[in-house]
């Protein structure tokens, strides 16, 4: 009898515990998600409605503001700038990191260890400390195109972690594969393109995600390098709306939503890849 009573007691305690745990997690989930939804709501109704009912459902769904923000405020242009810089940046980072990782992880030469340590020291150094001299010395390039000048630090800041990840991955590829290819008359360069690069695709994906996010979200260097609004990247583009902050919420919130949509779409498709890519740099470090 007492045994049955005990079980029932245990069971209800267990259920209570579950309710508490799930309740807690759901509350945090709401804290994370609700601000994002709230911003979307704010972007589809005007300020008067907003002030009447700041956190409920919108009574209207006015998407015209998105057109205004993208075309009239020129945010579409900023998105294109960010996309261009991120894509070109990732491609160049991959090329430089793959070639130098091959030389560091595979090829045999004196000093490769030191060069590796030299590259990896870049992980430790806060890049802010290079901003002033880089801004000054890249001014000639800036006169041609500010985006081009900014690409140079963006690429290099992505290199240390990319080299670290790719070279440690390359070390795990067995040498025998390449040896066999070389025996059949394949050159080293060809074996690099036809054997090594295809075999490193998992880590290439990781590095791409990591580097893309880094360039796509960067603010400080962009603030200094990109003065004219036509060359602004997306972070600078949405920052232009702060001038409207006190008077007009709707376009600013629309701009924030626009800035979030690409991440949301990519995340819903490639979620595990992205989580892996974002944490890889730190977990293997």
């Amino acid at each position, binding site marked *: 009898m007492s045994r049955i009573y005990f079980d029932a007691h245990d069971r209800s305690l267990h259920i209570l515990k579950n309710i508490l745990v799930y309740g807690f997690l759901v509350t945090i*989930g709401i804290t*994370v998600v609700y601000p994002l939804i709230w911003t979307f709501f704010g972007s589809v109704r005007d300020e008067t409605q907003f002030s009447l009912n700041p956190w409920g459902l919108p009574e209207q769904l006015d998407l015209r503001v998105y057109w205004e923000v993208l075309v009239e405020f020129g945010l579409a242009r900023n998105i294109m700038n960010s996309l261009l810089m991120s894509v070109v940046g990732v491609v160049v980072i991959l090329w430089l990191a793959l070639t130098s990782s091959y030389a560091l992880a595979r090829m045999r030469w004196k000093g490769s260890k030191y060069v590796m340590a030299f*590259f990896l020291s*870049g992980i430790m150094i806060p890049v802010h400390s*290079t901003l002033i001299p880089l801004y000054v010395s890249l001014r000639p390039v800036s006169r041609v195109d500010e985006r081009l000048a900014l690409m140079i630090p963006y690429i290099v800041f992505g*290199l240390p972690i990319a080299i670290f990840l790719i070279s440690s991955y390359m070390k795990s590829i067995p040498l025998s594969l390449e040896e066999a290819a070389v025996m059949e008359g394949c050159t080293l360069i060809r074996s690099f393109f036809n054997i090594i690069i295809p075999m490193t695709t998992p880590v290439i994906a990781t590095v791409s995600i990591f580097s893309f996010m880094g360039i796509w979200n960067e603010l400080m260097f962009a603030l200094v390098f990109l003065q004219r609004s036509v060359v602004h990247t997306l972070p600078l583009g949405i920052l232009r709306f702060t001038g409207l902050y006190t008077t007009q919420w709707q376009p600013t919130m629309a701009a*924030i939503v626009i800035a979030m949509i690409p991440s*949301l779409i990519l995340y819903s498709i490639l979620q595990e890849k992205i989580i892996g890519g974002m*944490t890889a740099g730190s977990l293997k470090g």
Partner: protein
Amino acid sequence: MDKMLRNPYTIAFFITPAFLLFLFVIPIPIFQTFFYSLTSWNVISDPTWIGLDNYRQLFTQDPHFVKALINTFIFALGSFLLQIPFAFLIANLLLRLKRFTGVFRSIFFFPCLLSATAVSLLWRFIYHPNMGLINSALNFLSLEGLTKSWLSNPNTALYAVMITVAWQWFGYHMVIFMTGASSIPKELYECADLEGATGWQSVRYITFPLVKSFIKISTVLITASSIKAFDSIYILTGGGPNNASTVLALQMYNRAFKQMKYGYGSAISVLLMIVAIVIVTILQKAIKIEEVTY
């Protein structure tokens, strides 16, 4: 094969471009920053050598810099205290959950993918004194007494930024901890339950020893990124009100690019780098981790 792998031309072809770019973008500018920090320079005229004068001025005549230095430490410590224990707690709850683990994990992780710019702008609305989420929620709960203009109050501004950053990043550290604990077999917890271990005991003796090295990684990451924090503070408070929430990176930016004092800004950026390297090195050395496997 061995001969091919020792071919100096191939090696040079592979390594030189990356090496040169790296050299000209990180090490050389670091030395230039050191040099500029010993000069007075507004970019238009040539730098004039003033020795350690910038540094002397920073520590003796610049209350904003001292404030920034203190705030940077507060920011790093506060971010650590806000994020690590919370992320560890959530990770532990999720690890023992029977259902919806994946859903919660995905949701909590998501904000770290957004740009700090978008997140900070969004939080400016959340903190808005009249229509912001926080104050309207407080009004709704009839707690009008607690409403504040969070970002323009010198007592709350810096902490408001910390909360924004924590909102964005706790999920990231949670995922790191969950990855660390993923090698723990689920039966181990069941076994502990059967043996009558409390939830706290299983966390303390099963999860913690394995996740410890991941806590160290997160601690180093949070500290390093807090020391150079710029984006969220620049957007949320601009360092205000009256420099109450200013930090090192913001001071460097303002001095160099707003006031055109490049030498002075360089001195701040040298100190920023030294602080970052010293603290991260200390953390790496101080937290000793022995390997554990199950």
